[in-house]
């Protein structure tokens, strides 16, 4: 077990170093990407600032609590780019060209290979840094919470990452049928775009739908609740079970779908 973890860690670092060298070749590109990230995060802050000019709270969330929520989306996004996100954007090419064959015969599970091969540190770096700053500003302005808040927050960012990964895996399993992964990932994009609204706005069927089927109401809300001092044990439990359940279902769907892969040009 420990041996396996060490091996994967070593692979991860090797892939990270390799990709970083590639990314550093295009410095202008990197600066432009970061500037756009910051602009887009800024738009979201302006959006909520304008709302809070008219109202005191949104579904029980104050302005500074909301900043933590917006920031958490940015952090989870950067975490995803540091692991699996970019790989799924490329999966369509792998399948169309038949290069996916190579992944299947490598001594590493194709799921992990896809996840690690295209790590990108810079793709969403602006968003990640902005996210940490926003979360810190929000946390600073709120009454001091318990000592456990920050470590628990970090743990549940990883839980959210698992939910995000599982959703991504399920959506991208369709790639074995329709080949085009760019379009599938438009859905994944909107999935994260809508994660920054607090879970408390949903009612009725919407609440169930956005918890179990399209779990956008958990991704940012659960970790942000911890840091904002409004968390409940039931929410933590819900997040953990959805993460576990989706990961299981996602892996099953992936396993079944991968059998549908029928190579190309060979």
């Amino acid at each position, binding site marked *: 077990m420990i041996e396996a973890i060490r091996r994967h860690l070593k692979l991860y670092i090797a892939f990270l170093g390799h990709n970083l060298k590639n990314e550093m070749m295009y410095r202008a590109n990197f600066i*432009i990407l970061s500037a*756009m990230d910051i*602009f*887009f995060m800024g*738009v979201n802050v302006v*959006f909520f600032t*304008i*709302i809070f*000019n*008219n*109202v*005191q*709270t*949104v*579904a029980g969330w104050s302005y500074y609590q909301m900043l933590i929520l917006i920031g958490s989306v940015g952090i989870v996004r950067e975490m995803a780019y540091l692991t699996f996100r970019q790989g799924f954007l490329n999966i369509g090419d792998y399948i169309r060209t038949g290069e996916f064959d190579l992944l299947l015969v490598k001594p590493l599970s194709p799921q992990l290979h896809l996840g690690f091969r295209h790590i990108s540190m810079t793709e969403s770096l602006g968003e990640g840094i902005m996210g940490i700053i926003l979360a810190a500003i929000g946390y600073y302005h709120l009454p001091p919470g318990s000592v456990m808040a920050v470590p628990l927050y970090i743990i549940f960012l990883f839980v959210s990452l698992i939910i995000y990964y599982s959703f991504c895996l399920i959506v991208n399993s369709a790639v074995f049928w*329709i080949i*085009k992964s760019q*379009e*599938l990932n*438009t*859905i994944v*994009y*909107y*999935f994260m*775009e*809508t994660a920054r*609204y607090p879970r*408390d*706005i*949903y*009612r009725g069927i*919407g609440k169930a739908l*956005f918890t179990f089927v*399209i779990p*956008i109401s958990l991704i940012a809300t659960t970790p942000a609740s911890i840091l904002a001092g409004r968390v409940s044990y039931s929410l933590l439990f819900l997040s953990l079970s959805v993460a576990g359940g989706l990961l299981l279902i996602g892996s099953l769907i992936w396993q079944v779908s991968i059998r549908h892969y029928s190579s190309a040009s060979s």
Partner: protein
Amino acid sequence: MKKYLTLFRINWQNSLQYRASTVIYIVGYGLYISVILYLWMSVYQAGNKMGDYTLTDLLTYYLLQLIVNILILSYISWELIDQIREGFFSNFLIKPLNLLVYWFTVNLSGKLLETIYLSMIGAVLYFFMRDYFWLPHHFSTFIYFGGSLFLAMTLAFLMDFCIALIAFWLIQVRVFKFMLLYLVFFFSGAILPLDLFPQWLQKGVHLLPFQYLAYVPIRIFLEKQENLSSVFTIELFWLLFFFALASWMVSRGVKRYEAVGG
């Protein structure tokens, strides 16, 4: 005229072929809009109000975004940029077609098809949301709304076309394209009605042409827009401005064109 009609038909058939991407876009944007609807309902249930908008006004505003946004999303520039950069543009030079009219026709046929899809989805949404949906009191509003949508589509096309033409001078045009997308997203009123912006920002925003893409048409539908004649006059001025700019860029750009790889 006939050659452009043929072009229209060919591109119509092409768009039919690639309807999956349109459907996925609508699903994704529909998800976004429904979350926003939940947000506003929650804000209004707590007894709050945004500017002079009632809940019905706001929900209608965002539902109409579904249609307006896809109409003003001109994507011909992706193709035109590639053509200029990779030298395929040479093929075009020997054809008896006007560059601007050619791409306008391509854009128009794609948008018309998407409008048909969207009307079907709009009908379904209206059925479920009819208690929350504002319908204009005057029939003339529909005509003004339709007219403003057509002008918005034309204006968006002209801006997009000008951005694409930068490819004659620079290699990295995609950056400008993304910037335009973001400017449109923010300053057209797509994320929030412009009159909810802070005063100092509103003054600047009302001087820009982006408001005619989403904010103005939807305000016309909601019968909140006053001085229609002066609004349309200023919009026409912007259309003329971008038309002149595009024509000037085409005449200068073609002279600079190097036919890479040809």
